[in-house]
């Protein structure tokens, strides 16, 4: 297996890893910058707007301009903030997001470090960021930030569970906790067909994990006015934003690998690394597009609804998926049966998501009180 950034030179593995990570960090920084451009353009089109047009052709240089602006902006720290927590919060979020890439196989050859439990590693690392949110929320000495930090911690931990449970289902089917092996498993059929319920749970939980609408309550603009990021400015703020986009990439990649077959499906692994990379990027972009689409379409959930959705809907269904997978493995049923059962579960989840919101009796429609014209009809002009 060839390692990224160390194709032919003989160098120690740790050095290769560091070089690879630095390379990925640089690439991802630019990638994130352009993800913002992509997001702004797509959402603008959904909103009858043009999006960035001024800087460069089609506004293509807008991310660069934004970056320069953010870098030269004054970096403020509130006088009453906890200096340690405030300064370190950025890194507590930033570092886990980037070291997740150690285990991401971009193509069949491009992988920094082959880990036997890379799926576990990815989930564990991405779950670390809540510490940073708590630090930022507490350290800012701002009540909005505190609320945001608490919300972030509660949300991240709650949605970690259905996410991991959905992944356990995948691991049961593929009998491997290595993303690489999971991709190889999907040479004929992607896991989304076998595990629609798991996919739905993953999709929902991953949006919550990256804190994007409609699960963006930690940073909810209209309630807590930026939440945890409220006191951050300049480079620090941009690092938070960068991290949230990088997290989005990580989960989009994870979804592309685990459920859409990564670079393996549908063309097999012999198409060369260029096409593999393209396939990965296309599948990742599908996920990202979905995140953007959701963002432009949905209102934000309320904190109690968010929590009850995780605990009362997603987790039971994730357990149901595990149970179904167990049945499948024990009785060695054909994959079609599993797919059908999981799809039924997915439909039930969708229905329940619809029902759980509309608790109680159906609402009565508005009463319409008619008003009939009593006055004289229009007189002719006097």
């Amino acid at each position, binding site marked *: 297996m060839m390692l990224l950034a160390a194709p032919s030179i003989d160098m120690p593995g740790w050095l290769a890893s560091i070089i690879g990570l630095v390379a990925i960090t640089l690439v991802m920084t630019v990638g994130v910058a352009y993800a913002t451009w992509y997001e702004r353009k*797509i959402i*603008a*089109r*959904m*909103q*009858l*707007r*043009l999006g960035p*047009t001024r800087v460069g052709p089609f506004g293509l240089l807008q991310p660069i301009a934004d970056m320069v602006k953010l870098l030269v902006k004054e970096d403020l720290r509130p006088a009453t903030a906890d200096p340690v927590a405030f300064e370190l919060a950025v890194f507590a979020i930033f570092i886990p997001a980037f070291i997740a890439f150690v285990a991401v196989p971009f193509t069949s050859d491009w992988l920094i470090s082959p880990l036997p439990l890379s799926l576990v590693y990815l989930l564990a690392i991405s779950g670390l960021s809540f510490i940073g949110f708590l630090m930022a929320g507490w350290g800012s000495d701002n009540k909005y930030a505190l609320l945001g930090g608490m919300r972030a911690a509660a949300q991240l931990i709650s949605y970690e569970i259905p996410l991991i449970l959905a992944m356990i289902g995948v691991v049961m089917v593929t009998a491997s906790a290595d993303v690489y092996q999971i991709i190889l498993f999907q040479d004929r059929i992607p896991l989304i067909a076998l595990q629609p319920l798991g996919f739905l749970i993953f999709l929902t939980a991953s949006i919550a994990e990256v804190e994007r609408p409609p699960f963006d309550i930690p940073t909810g603009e209209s309630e807590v006015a930026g939440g945890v990021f409220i006191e951050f400015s300049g480079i620090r703020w941009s690092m938070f934003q960068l991290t949230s986009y990088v997290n989005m990439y990580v989960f989009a990649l994870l979804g592309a690998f685990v459920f859409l077959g990564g670079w393996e499906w549908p063309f097999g692994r012999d198409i060369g690394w260029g096409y593999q990379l393209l396939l990965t990027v296309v599948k990742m972009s599908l996920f990202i597009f979905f995140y953007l*689409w*959701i963002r*432009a*379409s*949905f209102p934000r959930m309320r904190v109690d609804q968010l929590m009850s959705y995780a605990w009362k809907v997603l987790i039971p269904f994730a357990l149901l998926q595990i149970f179904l997978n167990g049945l499948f493995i024990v009785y060695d049923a054909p994959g079609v049966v599993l797919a059908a059962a999981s799809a039924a579960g997915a439909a039930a989840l*969708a*229905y329940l*998501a*619809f029902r759980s919101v509309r608790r109680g009796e159906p609402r009565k429609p508005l009463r319409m009180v008619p008003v009939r014209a009593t006055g004289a009809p229009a007189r002719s002009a006097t």
Partner: protein
Amino acid sequence: MLGILRSMGVTAKVMLTRKPVTIQYPEVHREIPNRDRAFPILIWDEEKDEPFCTGCHACERACPVECMTVVMKDNPRHATGESKRRKIIDEFWIDYGRCMRCNICVEVCNFEAIGMNNTWAGHELSRYDRSQLVFDLDQLLSQSKAGKVEPGLRA
């Protein structure tokens, strides 16, 4: 679920089928209607080659925010017989920072001497200093003198 899908449907439909409504403002100016009310300007009498305004103070009196200051003088061209106006405007200031563009000055004017600017030049009046927003007689007349403005709303 259906409502969620409907929401996603409408955004997707808008993205695919509709054109953005944005007007790229500094390059593209929206066409403004004829009776657009920007800020009041004074109107130049092309025939007599002097302003219509006689300085009668009607607008100054009617102005709700008192943004106008009018000084009148004897018209020197009346003595020579060039003009029928016995009195003419000497000094005229309008503080555009104070003006609320209510059109009352135009309504009360007996000589059609004041009108609301209906061009983009009447809107794009950003200044760095508020004192620069106090326009004097020459500034108020310049647009009409150059024939650039034909106010749509006149008393």
